[in-house]
C-alpha cells in the first residue's frame, strides 16, 4: 500500500516536471538579445492579429533607479520562418528608472505570422 502511494506521488511529481514551456521560456524564444542586458528585462510579450496584421505588445522593466536606453527592431516571418519584410531601422527607447514600459508594435504586412525581436540594451554585462 505504502509503495503504491509512493509510486503515485512519484508519478505525479514527474508529470508536473514535464510541463508545457513556461511563459519566460516562450518570451526568450521570440527575443534575440544582443548581449545580456544589465538592467532592462523583457517581462511580458503578447501578440494578436488585428485586421489581418500581427500586433505585439512587449513589456520592458527597468530594474535600475536610473534611466536606461535600449534599441530594438523586429524581424517579421511567415509560418515557415521565412523573412517577409526587409530589415527594419533600429528604434531607440528610453525607460525611466524602475519603470515598466509597454512597446506596441504593428507588423508592416499581413503576410507576417511570426516574429523575432532584436533587442540591444546600452548597458550589458560583459560576455
Amino acid at each position, binding site marked *: 500500500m505504502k509503495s503504491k502511494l509512493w509510486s503515485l506521488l512519484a508519478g505525479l511529481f514527474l508529470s508536473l516536471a514535464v510541463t508545457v514551456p513556461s511563459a519566460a521560456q516562450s518570451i526568450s524564444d521570440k527575443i534575440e538579445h544582443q548581449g545580456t542586458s544589465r538592467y532592462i528585462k523583457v517581462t511580458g510579450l503578447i501578440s494578436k492579429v488585428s485586421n489581418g496584421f500581427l500586433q505585439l505588445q512587449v513589456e520592458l522593466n527597468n530594474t535600475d533607479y536610473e534611466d536606461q536606453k535600449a534599441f530594438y527592431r523586429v524581424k517579421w516571418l511567415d509560418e515557415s520562418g521565412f523573412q517577409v519584410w526587409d530589415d*527594419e*531601422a533600429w528604434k*531607440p527607447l528610453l525607460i525611466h528608472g524602475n519603470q515598466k514600459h509597454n512597446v506596441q508594435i504593428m507588423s*508592416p504586412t499581413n503576410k507576417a505570422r511570426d516574429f523575432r525581436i532584436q533587442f540591444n540594451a546600452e548597458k550589458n554585462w560583459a560576455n
Partner: protein
Amino acid sequence: MKFPQSRQSLISAKLSALVVATTLLYGCAASGPTVQSNVTYGDAKAVEQVTNEFGSTDLQTIAEAMARSLAQSMAKEPTKPLVTIAEVKNKTSEYIDTRSITDSIRVQLLKGGTMRFATDIAGMQNQTDELVRQNQSGLYKQSGTAKTGKMQGAKYRIEGNITSIVKNSKDVKDVFYKFSLILTDNESGTIEWADEKEIRKTSKR
C-alpha cells in the same frame, strides 16, 4: 665599426628584400573585394546620434510608424483604396525634406499591399508629358498607347505637417518634433484617419 663595402651592399640588399617581402605580405593579408581607401560603409538602419537636428533615424521612425498605423486602419476597406500624397508642410526652423518622409511612407504602404497610389501633384507634369508624348508626337502605334482621359482620381489624400519646439539652456538643448498626418476623403472632405509621432532629442553641451 665600419664594414667593408661589399658587406655593406649585401646588408642593404637584404634589407631591401625584407622591405619588399613585408609589403607584399601586408598586401596579401589586407585582401578583399575592396579598393583601399579611408571610406567605410556603415549600417543604414543604425540609430544616428550625431546631432540633435532631424536625422535618418527620425525619418525612418516616423515613416514606419505612420505607414503601419495607416495600413492597419485601411485594412478594413473592402478593396484597396486609391490614395494620393498632398503636401506635408515643414513648420520647423530647420531644413527637412518632407518629400523624403512621404516617399518612404508610400514605399512601405505599397509594399504592404494595403493601398494604391495615384500620381500626386509633384508627379503630374511627368504624367502629362508622357501622355502628350505617346498621343500627340505621332511616333507611337495608336493601339498601344496610354489614352488621355483615363486617369483614376484618388479617393483619399494624405497630408500633414511637422513642427518642432526648441529649448536652449546653458548646458542643454532640447528639440521636440511632432509629425502629424491625416487621411481625407476627397469627395466628402471628411478626415478618415489621423495619427502623429513625437520625438524628443536632447543634447548636452
